[in-house]
């Protein structure tokens, strides 16, 4: 399995602290979501310390950060649930503080905790929202049936939501946020706690919505999720935006490529580590029986292969790959996005 880098190399790898980034004004269309200098304090805690972000109409903006970075606070400010202490945010062109009602008529929100009424059936949950939005009884029932069908919940339509599985509940919650056909959708950690199959289903739904022209702001602490779905990513840490860009941009900016090698015989790991260190002039990391080292240019891989061949080491795996978002996050913030746990490893393997 050998892959090579094709582009994005040679850029300035220094990460600048960004304000509202340039990707927002593509094609002269005003951004669907634009926030500048958002500050929100809760007592002594500063949840947002001047965060700025911007989402292009019809794209997915991934807001990536660890627990407690301020992702949920930012979402709640943008969805008009919280007033910021400082800063300004426009959603669909409307100020979230001055014209919250207009913002609400454009948005859908799916929170980290599914906001469905567990005492109601799937149908009733959706009819409730449709009726609140002013649709007639018949239109509400039609819309509910349509959404239940799209989300594979028709069979469970008449059952109380409390009997639903976690994945079904999350689907119903997403369906509820779509009743009013929102143009802008906020998904706050939509896949946290979902099994890989449900998560992949949800990803497909998000892609499909974006295909229909919906703008999605998605917060996540899963790097692969942002990589999979987002057109642009803002990396947020301790209430501030530490980087913005496309997934590729961020990977390129955080230090290009990584050469990864796994010896066929595990006891030769130390030899591989020494050779890699010598030729790359950098300290390799050793994890799970394989050695990874930053590869400043394309000549490293053939050099390593030759040298290892000379000293009689056979490689089971050799990959020249772009840095993962996890490595990017480490480079940008000085700490890992999520301390690796079994759960996290599973997710990455199935991605």
């Amino acid at each position, binding site marked *: 399995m050998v892959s090579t880098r094709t582009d994005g190399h040679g850029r300035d790898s220094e990460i600048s602290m960004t304000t509202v980034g340039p990707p927002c004004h593509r094609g002269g*269309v*005003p951004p*669907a979501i634009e926030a500048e200098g958002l500050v929100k304090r809760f007592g002594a805690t500063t949840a947002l310390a001047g965060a700025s972000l911007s989402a292009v*109409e*019809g794209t997915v903006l991934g807001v990536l950060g660890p627990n407690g970075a301020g992702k949920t606070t930012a979402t*709640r400010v943008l*969805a*008009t*649930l919280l007033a910021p202490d400082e800063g300004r945010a426009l959603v*669909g*062109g409307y100020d979230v503080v001055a*014209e919250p*009602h*207009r913002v*609400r*008529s*454009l*948005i*859908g*929100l799916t*929170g*980290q*905790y*599914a*906001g*469905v*009424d*567990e*005492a*109601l059936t799937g149908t*009733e949950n959706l009819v*409730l*929202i449709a*009726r*609140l*939005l*002013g649709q007639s009884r018949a239109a509400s029932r039609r819309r509910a049936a*349509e959404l239940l069908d*799209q*989300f*594979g919940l028709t069979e469970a339509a008449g059952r*109380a939501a409390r009997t639903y599985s976690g994945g079904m509940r999350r689907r119903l*919650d997403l369906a*509820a*946020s*779509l009743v*009013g*056909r*929102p*143009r802008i959708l*906020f998904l706050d950690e939509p896949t946290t706690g979902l099994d890989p199959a449900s998560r992949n*289903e949800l990803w*497909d*739904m998000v892609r*499909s*919505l974006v*295909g*229909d*022209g*919906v703008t999605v702001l998605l917060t996540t602490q899963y790097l692969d999720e942002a990589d999979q779905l987002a057109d642009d990513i803002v990396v947020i840490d301790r209430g501030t935006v530490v980087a913005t860009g496309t997934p590729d941009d961020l990977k390129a900016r955080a230090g290009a490529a990584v050469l990864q090698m796994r010896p066929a015989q595990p006891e030769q790991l130390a030899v591989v580590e020494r050779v890699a260190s010598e030729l790359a002039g950098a300290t390799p990391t050793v994890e799970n029986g394989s050695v990874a080292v930053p590869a400043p240019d394309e000549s490293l891989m053939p050099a390593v292969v030759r040298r290892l061949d000379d000293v009689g080491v056979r490689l089971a795996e050799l990959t020249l790959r772009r840095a993962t978002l996890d490595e990017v996050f480490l480079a940008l913030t000085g700490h890992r996005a999520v301390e690796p746990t079994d759960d996290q490893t599973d997710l990455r393997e199935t991605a």
Partner: protein
Amino acid sequence: MTLDRTAPARPAGPALDAPAAPRRVTPAQWASQSLTMAWRSLVQIKHNPSELLDLSIQPIMFVLLFTFVFGGAIYGSADAYLQFALGGLIAQNALFLTIYTATGLATDLQKGTFDRFRSLPIARSAPLSGRIMGDVVRQLWSLVVLLVVGVVLGFRITTSPVAVLAAFGLLVAFTLAFSWTSVLLGVLARDPEKVQIYGFTVLFPLTFASNAFAPTETMPGWLQAWVAINPVTRMADALRGLLVGGPVAANAVATLLWGVAFAAVFGPLAVWALRTRV
């Protein structure tokens, strides 16, 4: 399971192309949204019929227990006691039922349902007003159950149908005002189980330290002072007057003034708590 691409969401394009959405809801929309919320609060009884039993069995049990266990001791006979106590039982039950408002609200806050509602272009107050409307229906159901059980056991309404309706009206007016305490409790507790604990910690002394179940004269002096002004006493007396005769006006006015006081103190506190804690 994929989304239907043939039915696009709103067409893509700058928001400003679309006709501007209204800035706020009209009173008619408020009413319709509140009624929808009330429907939501009541339709769940369909899936959880045991709630209806809760609303019926507890009041019935109180009537039976008080009438047959304590009635003879307090009033000489169960029959005479029922004429005295039913007004008190109705008042107590009404206050107990306001806990529903708090548990419902706490559940919505805890489960994120409240956030969903707040992200919709609907009146800010609709989730609250709808819930309270639903709880008024619960109040009326419970009141009817109490009256029917009372009459079956021998309670005699000696006034007019108009007076009975006035009793309904007074009860609803007071509990609506008193519900603000429940709203505050629901927001502060944030957990339906805590609501039950805190709620009954307040409601038990409030309802029992009244003349709902025993005549004031039989109590020690220090307690009589409180019992005389306790809103439960005043409402129980007003209900007695409206159902079996006796002075009404002063007690009804006192009850309503208490209601105004509760709303004036706890209304702003509840709204403040909702604004800051949500």
